[in-house]
């Protein structure tokens, strides 16, 4: 829009500068400190890059990295689908809401990692168990935000839909889901980081492969640079998730972000 004010840091070089400035500075400090006082427990940056390459772009890519990422992806997709479906059902049904609220408070308070031993007993040590661990912890923000989003659909918009006979599935598709989408996306954003944490935790118990298992294995065998490289992998997965999220958000919530911008300028 033409009336949009240019803010500081809007140009491309400035944006790149802002987003890379701090990481570059931190790496410089880290490098400097490993040179000044070398430590067995802290590898130098070149060492880490080399180890990273050797460790993760070898056989471990197929045996550990890829299966973890696939489980994470399945876990996230299942979380979002289940969370939104249940959230829409509960959000549009008052009786169901009163019924489920106390139970949700209970389950939300249970830290998901303690479910791992229990789920191992019930499901066994396998991929399903690990995906269930991810879903059981990550679903709450999606579910609760969807319920709130569905509940807070504007009353005038609801009346408008009714007067034009937009009911049933059409109402869901054209009215309820888009109206709830800003809240749903808030829940999805939170679920991503929780999923990543639970992916690692689910692999630390009784596992023989996966990122979480590998990092613990490296730590126990004093393969220090390898352990650091595993942590770096997790960080990179986090960045990738965040980029995918931002891309999706811009597509799904373009209208919402634009509307907010307009309201702010007024």
């Amino acid at each position: 829009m033409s009336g949009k004010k240019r803010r500081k840091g809007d140009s491309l070089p400035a944006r790149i500068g802002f987003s890379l400035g701090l990481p570059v500075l931190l790496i410089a400090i880290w490098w400097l400190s490993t040179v000044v006082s070398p430590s067995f427990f802290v590898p130098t940056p070149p060492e880490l890059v080399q180890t990273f390459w050797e460790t993760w772009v070898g056989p471990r890519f197929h045996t550990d990295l890829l299966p973890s990422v696939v489980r994470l992806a399945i876990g996230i997709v299942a979380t979002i689908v289940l969370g939104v479906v249940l959230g829409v059902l509960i959000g549009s049904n008052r009786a169901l809401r009163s019924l489920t609220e106390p139970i949700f408070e209970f389950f939300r308070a249970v830290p998901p990692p303690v479910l791992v031993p229990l789920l191992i007993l019930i499901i066994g040590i396998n991929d399903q168990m690990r995906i269930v661990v991810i879903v059981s912890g990550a679903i709450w923000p999606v579910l609760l935000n969807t319920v709130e989003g569905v509940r807070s659909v504007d009353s005038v918009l609801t009346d408008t839909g009714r007067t034009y006979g937009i009911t049933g599935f059409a109402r869901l598709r054209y009215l309820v889901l888009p109206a709830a989408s800003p809240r749903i996306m808030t829940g999805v954003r939170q679920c991503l980081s929780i999923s990543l944490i639970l992916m690692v935790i689910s692999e630390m118990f009784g596992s023989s492969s996966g990122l979480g298992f590998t990092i613990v294995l490296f730590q126990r065998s004093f393969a220090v640079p390898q352990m650091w490289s595993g942590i770096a992998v997790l960080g990179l997965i986090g960045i990738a998730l965040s980029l995918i999220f931002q891309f999706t958000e811009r597509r799904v919530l373009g209208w919402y972000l634009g509307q907010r911008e307009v309201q702010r300028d007024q």
Partner: protein
Amino acid sequence: MQSSAQTDRPMLSVQGLKKVYSSDSGDVEAVRDLTFDIAAGQLVCLVGPSGAGKTTLLKCIAGLLNPTSGVVELDGQKVTEPPKKMAVVFQEYGRSLFPWMTVRDNVDLPLKNQRVPKAERQKLVDDALEAVGLAHVPRSYPWQLSGGMQQRVAIARAVAYRPQVLLMDEPFAAVDAQTRADLEDLMREIWGKLGVTILFVTHDIDESVYLGERVIILSNSPTVVQEDLTIDLPAERSQLETRSSPRFAELRHHVYEQIQRAKNRTA
């Protein structure tokens, strides 16, 4: 389609309508006893002091609220839920358009939902946008437009829907005076072109006299019909001439007096 002209039956009929809201702190009687008919093709304004239950009445007619007692009939059919042949334009244009859809999609959605064939839909939407003077912004989003233009989109949506009855709930209360005058003329024009029956709710006395063929004046709450007045101004109206004509002044004076009387009766 049944034609109400053949049977001489009113297009819209409100009989003994009463609405009581019950709450913990006691019952509130929003509408006491309203009865009036509107013939097919009429443009009727409903005016009353604020708090007279105008919006409640309109929601009952639109089938959005169930009356406590009394009946609303549209073309002989009792209204129990929002009828297909009716469209509503709300005051809060910012909240009645779907912000995630372009202007065009907003106008198109009710038609798409009714499974109107695509070619026909396209023409209806084009014509409606043209009629409200928005043919140039179909790809914009509602929130990119000014308030007056947003309300034009809502009107276009109602027009494209081809209702038999169009209900308008203080549609121009939130736009500036000049836009308001433009929109009033737009409504007269659309009404003249389409021959649709319009019930226009407003709290603005000038607006009701300028727009309507008939003005129904409501009393203060608990609401009854205070007076049912025919506006005998010429059909061709203009903001300049009509509003400065002596007859307009007389009618305006009369409605104003009635509203004052309505207010004082209970105050």
